[in-house]
């Protein structure tokens, strides 16, 4: 299993760079993961990351686009603006959760 150092802390990841152990995640690691994607985290990003965190703890899965819209009240356009070229995948990675396994 690959290990890499983010924000001065070693973390375990899968081949694609998703954290495999969420307990190793913190806000500094989120900022470092975001930087890898060329993203500087702001309030809009944190609204998404906080929703993924809450929803994952409840449902055991990263929410899809429709759930982000309907339950998280985050419009599709906002998600693409905040996390360009792969909104759910990038948001899941930065929030320290696994790669989404859904097609939609």
């Amino acid at each position: 299993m690959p290990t890499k150092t983010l924000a001065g802390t070693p973390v375990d990841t899968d081949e694609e760079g998703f954290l495999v152990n969420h307990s190793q995640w913190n806000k500094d690691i989120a900022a470092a993961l975001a930087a890898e994607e060329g993203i500087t985290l702001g309030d809009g990003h944190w609204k998404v990351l906080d929703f993924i965190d809450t929803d994952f703890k409840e449902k055991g899965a990263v929410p899809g686009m429709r759930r982000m819209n309907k339950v998280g009240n985050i419009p599709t356009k906002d998600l693409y603006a905040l996390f360009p070229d792969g909104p759910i995948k990038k948001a899941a990675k930065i929030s320290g959760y696994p790669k989404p396994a859904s097609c939609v």
Partner: protein
Amino acid sequence: MSDKIKKVSIIVSKGSLDGIYPGLIMGNGARMEGIEANLFFTFFGLYAILKKYMGSIKIATVGNPAMRVPDAKGFPLPTILGALPGMSAFATHMMNKEMEALDIPPIPEFIEMIHDAGGKIYACKATVDMFHLTLADFCPQMDKVLTVGDFYDIAAGGQIIFT
């Protein structure tokens, strides 16, 4: 990753539920991966973007030998039963319920989602003429009516998928 797909142009030519959804799922999935997506609706596929009809697309219960009841692992549905009034509506209702549970949006919402994701929605000029349609017949997400030539221009340099 150097051979990553950068652009897909998907042609949706069928107007049944199972004819439309694959194109929408692939188009939306492309945008979710950062791939540029163009959706070109032609012939009966055009019903997926017609304001008045896009919310009531049905699955065909006749002429589909793979159709099984009461679920996907049940018995093949005999053609004569598939032709009974209400059968198509019932099968559509069942399938919509399954999709709702998976958070796959209904067609009008899905078109809006793809549009908001930056996917382009195009209508085929030949079909528009043949069906005597005007711009007022289309959902607001429809970007443009294209000729085949326009479509090839837009699709240039990417992959074309026919569904």
